[in-house]
Structure formats: C-alpha cells, structure tokens
C-alpha cells in the first residue's frame, strides 16, 4: 500500500478552483475593509425625515484615509509574495549584498507604495463590487467543499486522498446533517426560536458545526461507525508516522492511519472522533446541572434580596475569585479523590435538580393535591433512584444504598463535579441579575396581587421570561465547559492519560510538538471548531431573539 496524499487525484481538479476562490475572498474582505475608509453615503433619520449625509472619514483626504489601507494592503501583498514568489524580494536584495537595514527599508517602501497604489484603486471601486465578490467567492468555496465531499463518496479507495477518505468515514454524519437541515428549513415557520435560527447565516454555520460533532459522537459512541481503528490499539511501526501512512503488511482492518500515528502508535483520526463522545457526554450535561444549581439559588437571591442574597453572592464571589486552574489542581488530584471530597460535593450538587423539579411541580399544582402528588411521584421517584445510584459508589465513603444500578468511572465523576462547581456561580450571578430586573415588571406585581406564592412567581412568572438570555448563555456555557474540560486534560488531571478526550490528546501531542506537529493539531482543531460552532450558534440565537 502506498501512502495517501492529502486530496488525491480529485484534489488536483478541484484544488485550483479552491485556491482562486479563497484568494478572491481574502482580497475582497481586505478591499471591503479598505473601502470602509473611503467616502460613502448613509441615511440619517432626523425629526424632519430622512437625510442622506456623506459618510466620510474626514473632511479632506487625510493621512489616515490612505495610510492605514496602504499598510493593510501592503501586508497582504507581502504575505502573498512570501507564499508564491521565489526568490522573494528581500531574499533577492540580500543576494545583491545590500546591508540588512537598507534591505528592510527598501522592501518596506516597495510594499508600502504598492499597497498605497492598490488601496487607492480599491477605494475608488464601488462598495457593491466587494459585497458581490465576497458573497460569490464564499458560495464557490462552500460549493467546492460540498462537491469534494460528494464526489469523494464515489471515488475509488485512495483517489480522493486523506480528506476524501475522512469524508467517506463521516458519511452517516453528512446524511444526518442533510436530513436535519432539510426538515428544519421546511418546517422553520412552525418551530419558534429554533426555526428562526435558519434565517441567519451565522446561526446556521454554528448549528451545522455543533450538530456535526453531536452526530459524530452519536455514531461513534452508539453505533461504532466513523472511526477506522480502535482508539487504544497500538500498531508497531506507526509511531509518530505522518498523515496518510499505510498499515504494515499483514495487518487487518482499515488500510491507512488517515491522520498519522501518535507517540504510542495509535490512530489519531480514531482518537479524535472518539474524543467527541467524551465531550458530548460531559459538557452539555454538566452545563445543565450548573444551570439547575444556578437557577435554584439565583432566583430566590434576586427575588428575596436581603441577607440571603448577601450570603449567596458572597459564596459565589468566593468561588469566582479562585483561579480556575488552582481550584482544579486542588480538587482533581488522586489524593483528594481518596478523601471522598468529590463524592460529597456530588451529593450536594446533584440534589439541586431534584429540588428544582420538586418545587417547580409543587408550586404549580399546590391546589390540586391528587394531581400534585401523582406528578411529583412520576418525576421524583426515578430521579431519586438515579440520584442515589449516581452518588453511591462502591469503595467510596458514600456506599450505603443497596439498589446501586451503575457506577460512574471515578475520573469522569470528579471531572463532572468540578466543572459543575466552577460553572454554577456564574450562572447564579446571571440568574440573580435577571430576577432583579424582572421582579419589577407589572406581571409580577399582578401575580403578587393575585396572592401567588413566591416560588410560583419565581419559577412560573420570572423564569419563563428570562429564557431568552438563558438559552443564549447555555450555548456559550457549553462551549466554555468544553474549554474547561480541555484545560483539565491539558494538565493531565482527572481522566486517565490514555483517554482519547481532546484535552488529554493535546497534552500528549504537545510534548513532542517541536518534532512532530501532527498529533496535537487534529484534537486542537476539533475542539476549536466545536467551541466556535457553539459561539456562533449563541450569536445567531441572540440576534434572532432580539428581533422579536
């Protein structure tokens, strides 16, 4: 078997189109930025009606109006030259035997002048041109990517290179994504805030990135698809091998290590997709728990105020004043785990969902006892069983409950607890602020006059009206939790070292980073894309919820 190239023969056809499209896109974005300094007009609405005012940077052509664009365009040209020209201008000058300072000066001057010239031209171009160029080059880029993924599904093994083979491995994910997007776009008018997300490009990109990793985690974790090898299996001879390396003769299974082998000769690609399972298992759930804690404590703090508020706020600020890493180092060490402290913390933190649901239901159906007890029993009994099973760990200080259905691996529980612990004070502060704001509204006053109980007002009047900011923050916070999990892995805390989660793999890869760069990059980029997706999703949601 030969080693795979990055894009194979399919890439040689689509490659040039992609390069041209990317170049046009970058130039158009810079041009648009430059044009922003030039004259344009803008409508200003005043009391007497709309007035069109020239929107100029200054009254006369100033230094700034040309200098900043000239520097910007000059830098872009310099970067382009460094990639394409051989020899570069400065290398050529150095060959002529000029002294260093003169060489630098001449290079800087030449690029500044060229930058100034192009900037002058760009500023005179109509702004609409850039809009058009940006839009269409972006569409071409997306088109090329989609076409590559599409055609690589039909290309023979190896013809589409490493990227093509990865695209093939992700086939179930693509199908699930297509299905989700088609259904959502068709029914978007009936889907409320979720449907509105599909009106904003940013929101759609973010949602796509997030769902990509969600589906990957589902297909890897439940159906064992996508991955090519066992994430823990070591194959001798493939230690630190570059991407696309073929398997040694006689090894069964997939014929290549798509993204190369790591320091222990394991498949980087399989470890990366396997890592998404761990993140998807912990991050959303931990964020949800942090929200339960934050809401259950933040609502009364904001609503009642007074001593309770002072006390809880002091506690929250206390935790927030800790540098996160110090806290992790203090909580997530084998010695602390041996004392059982994380189990006690789990006992306290995991009770909050029960309290939350119990109060939520009881405050609503207080006047219909039979219905109240029925619903409470339906919801709380399974939750209580779950709670007791989770906190009850064999061999830990909390080991009293006979009906223990499952044990969470120690490492995961500790990581989970510490992440919830770090996140809840921030949620508390947000919820408290929202409650302080909303409790002055008329509908709260109306409910108070009706004689509603405080907890009914908090959970059924205030909380639903705070949902917009809370949903947005929930998305952001999942991203932050992912970052925290990565930090824990990066310092080798909590999860076992062979665990394929992204933080641990980055930690493994960084040790030999200066010699072999390829093992650390895939998990880093995976983590980045997931967090970016969540941030973009939150941005899209915020924008759309503000339009209401």
């Amino acid at each position, binding site marked *: 078997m030969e080693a795979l190239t990055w894009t194979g023969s399919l890439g040689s056809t689509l490659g040039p189109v992609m390069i041209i499209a990317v170049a046009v896109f970058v130039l158009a974005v810079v041009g*648009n*930025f430059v044009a*922003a300094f030039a004259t344009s007009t*803008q409508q*200003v609405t*005043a009391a007497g009606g709309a*007035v069109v*005012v020239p*929107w*100029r*940077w*200054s*009254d006369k052509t*100033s230094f*700034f109006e040309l200098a900043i664009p000239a520097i910007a365009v000059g830098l872009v040209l310099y970067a382009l030259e460094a990639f394409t020209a051989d020899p570069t201008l400065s290398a050529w000058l150095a060959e002529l035997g000029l002294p260093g300072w003169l060489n630098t000066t001449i290079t800087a001057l030449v690029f500044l002048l060229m930058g100034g010239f192009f900037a002058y031209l760009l500023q005179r171009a109509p702004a609409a041109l*850039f*809009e058009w160029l*940006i839009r269409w080059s972006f569409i071409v880029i997306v088109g090329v990517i989609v076409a590559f993924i599409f055609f690589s599904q039909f290309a023979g093994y190896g013809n589409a290179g490493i990227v093509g083979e990865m695209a093939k491995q992700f086939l179930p994910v693509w199908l699930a994504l297509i299905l989700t997007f088609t259904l959502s776009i068709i029914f978007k008018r009936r889907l409320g805030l979720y449907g509105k997300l599909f009106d904003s490009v940013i929101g759609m990109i973010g949602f796509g990135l997030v769902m990509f990793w969600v589906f990957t985690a589902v297909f890897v974790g439940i159906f064992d698809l996508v991955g090519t090898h066992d994430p823990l299996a070591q194959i001798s001879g493939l230690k630190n091998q570059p991407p696309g390396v073929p398997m040694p003769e006689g090894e069964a299974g997939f014929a290549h290590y798509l993204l190369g082998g790591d320091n222990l000769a394991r498949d980087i690609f399989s470890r990366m997709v396997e890592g998404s399972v761990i993140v998807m298992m912990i991050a959303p759930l931990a964020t949800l728990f942090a929200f339960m804690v934050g809401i259950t404590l933040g609502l009364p703090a904001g609503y009642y105020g007074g001593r309770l508020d002072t006390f809880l706020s*002091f506690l929250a*600020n*206390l935790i*927030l*004043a*800790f*540098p996160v*890493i*110090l806290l992790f*180092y*203090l*909580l997530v*060490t*084998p*010695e*602390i785990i*041996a*004392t059982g*402290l994380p189990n006690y913390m789990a006992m306290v933190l995991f009770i909050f969902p029960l309290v939350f649901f119990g109060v939520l239901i009881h405050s609503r159906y207080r006047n219909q006892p039979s219905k109240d007890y029925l619903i409470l029993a339906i919801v709380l009994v399974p939750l209580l069983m779950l709670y007791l099973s989770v906190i009850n760990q064999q061999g830990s200080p909390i080991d009293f409950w006979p009906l223990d259905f499952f044990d969470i691996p120690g490492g995961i529980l500790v990581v989970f607890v510490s992440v919830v612990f770090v996140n809840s004070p921030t949620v508390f502060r947000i919820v408290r602020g929202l409650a302080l704001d909303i409790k002055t509204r008329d509908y709260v006053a109306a409910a108070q006059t009706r004689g509603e109980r405080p907890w009914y007002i908090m959970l059924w009047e205030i909380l639903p009206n705070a949902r917009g900011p809370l949903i947005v923050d929930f998305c952001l916070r999942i*991203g932050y939790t992912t*970052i925290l999990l*990565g*930090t824990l892995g*990066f*310092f080798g805390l909590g999860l076992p070292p062979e665990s394929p989660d992204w933080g641990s793999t*980055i930690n493994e*890869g*960084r040790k030999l*980073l*200066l*010699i072999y*760069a390829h093992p650390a*990059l895939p998990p*880093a*980029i995976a983590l*980045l894309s997931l*967090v*970016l997706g*969540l*941030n*973009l999703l939150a*941005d899209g949601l915020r924008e759309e919820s503000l339009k209401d």
Partner: protein
Amino acid sequence: MGLFILRRLGVMLLTALCLTFIVFWLTNLQPNLEKLAKTQGNARMSDEAVETWLGNRGYTRNVFVKYGEWLGVLPGYVIEGTDGETRGRCANNSTITEDTATFCGVLQGDWGYSTVFRDEVSSILGERGWQTAKLMFFVMLVMVPGALIIGVLAGMKEGSRTDRSLSTVSILSTATPEYVSGVVFIAVFATATFNMQWFKGTATSAMDNITFENFTLPVLTVALYGMGYIARMTRASMTEVMTAQYIRTARLKGVSFRNIVLRHALRNALIAPFTVIMLQFPWLLNGVVIVETLFNYKGFGWTLVQAAGNNDIEMLLGVSVVSVFVVLATQLISDIGYVFLNPRIRIS
C-alpha cells in the same frame, strides 16, 4: 466614596481569609500530608513512620491552629519530637534559639519555606512573579490596543460588513482557548511543517533576554483569547454611543466622521471596556498558567503547577494569596474606575 472603598476592602479581606483557609484545609487533608511525607522523607516509609514524621513537624494538629500559625496570629509550634530533636516552626524545623521569633506567619512577613524549590517562598514569588509581570506587560501592550481598535472599528457602523467580519474575528478569538492557539501557533510558526519557521517554540530563553523571536508566540497566545471578549464589549458600547442623540446632532451639523469618532464617541465608549479589561486579569492568570507550561517559561503560573503537583503547601498558599489579591484588587479598581470615569455617577 470613602465608605464604599472601606466596605469593599473589608469584604476583600474576608474573602481572602476564606479562600486561603480553603486552600489550607485542602492541602492539609490526610492523603495530601501522607504524600508530602513520602516525597520529603522516604518514599518507602511505613504508615507509622509517616505518622511520626508528620507529628514531629506539627502537621497532625488541628487545622485551625495550623492556619493561625501560618497566618501569624498564633505562636509557632515548638515540638520535642519522638526522635529526640526539638523542632520549632519559626526556626525552619531546627532547634530554637533565643532569637527565634514567637510568631512567624504571613502577617510577620514570613511566607514559609517551599519544599519543592527548597527556598524561601517570598523570594521565589518575587523572582517568578517578576517573570510573569514581564509577560503580562507585553500581553497588555498587544491585547488592549488591539481589542479597542477592533471593537471601535466594528462598532463605528453597526451592521456594516466591516462590523460583521470583525465581529466574526472576535468570536473566533474567544472560541480559541490558549492551549489550542498555542499548539497551532507552535505547529505553524515554530516547526518546519508549514515552512514558516519564524519564531521559537519555547520561551525559556526569554527569561533573561526577551527577543522578538522567543516572546512573540507566548504573548500572542495569551493576548488572543482575551482580545475577542474585550473587543466585543467595546463594540457593544461603541454601537450604543453611536446611536445616541448627541452623535446624530453632530452628524447633522456636518461634523466629519473622524471628529465624531475621535472627539465625541470614543471617550464615552471606553468607560465600559475599562471595567472589562480590569476584570480580565483573573482570566489572564489562567492563560498565563497554560502558556507558561506550554512554552516552558518559568514564571508564576509554572510555579503554581509545580507547587500544586507536589503538594508544596506553603508555596501553594503563597501563590493563592498573590492570585486572590490580584483578582480582588482588580475588582476594586474596576469598581472605583467605573465611578470615577462615568461623569453621570461622579457628579451626582
């Protein structure tokens, strides 16, 4: 104003006391002490030997008493050990003499002795803290102007394409934690993988001699993560100012765009980012720990990791005191600064 600062100082002191006590308590839990005894004494000590070792050095007493000694409000222990030696806390576990002080805690300026670095905690903190201060200085130098420029440019014309592209850039930077950007930067700019070997992948040499080559990547890595957040706050505040009535009046009067931005809008738009920048310090501390580990730059964060990894109790306490102080002081400054900068609050 005076009362406000006094109250804040009181809360600060209480917080610092609580936090250091928590750190003290966690580091003094039994398994941690056993680990300490085994690393300091002998790795193959029996359980009994561990107990005597700890007992002779005063570790087995009540945690409140030990905390009081560390703080300097209780007299340091003098223990006649089972091995016949007399150890005094204030004499660095050797026999006490006549000029040994009775109290030796943080209040007396005695920060204790680091078991990992085998040196006085205060001198290590000074030395390592200075290294981190240099890093922080350059980070601020890059981050603050960069973030403000991006934020102001984006917020000048809300909804324009400049705004949208710069906002996307700032979202990207907030979504890139230091250990991701650091790894990517090293892979791209410090290895031969992409043929752009422009900088160095370690900053060890920067401790004595800062050069463009060895300090760019660590500074950029820390600055990038904070930059996006400050830029977004600046943008939000700038867009709010730009829609204000007085800006529209100035526009209709025919004031040039430059004068509007620089003379009328900027000053009001920079009040909110000031508090945000101040509150970024605790986050920077986080970034510093990651970057110093990644780039092997032996500063404050690196010390934290070493101390925490080896349960070096007094070193860890010193580190937490300093970091908690930084966090609380920046909060205080941001509160005072907000009042001071905002004319609406200042004059009323």
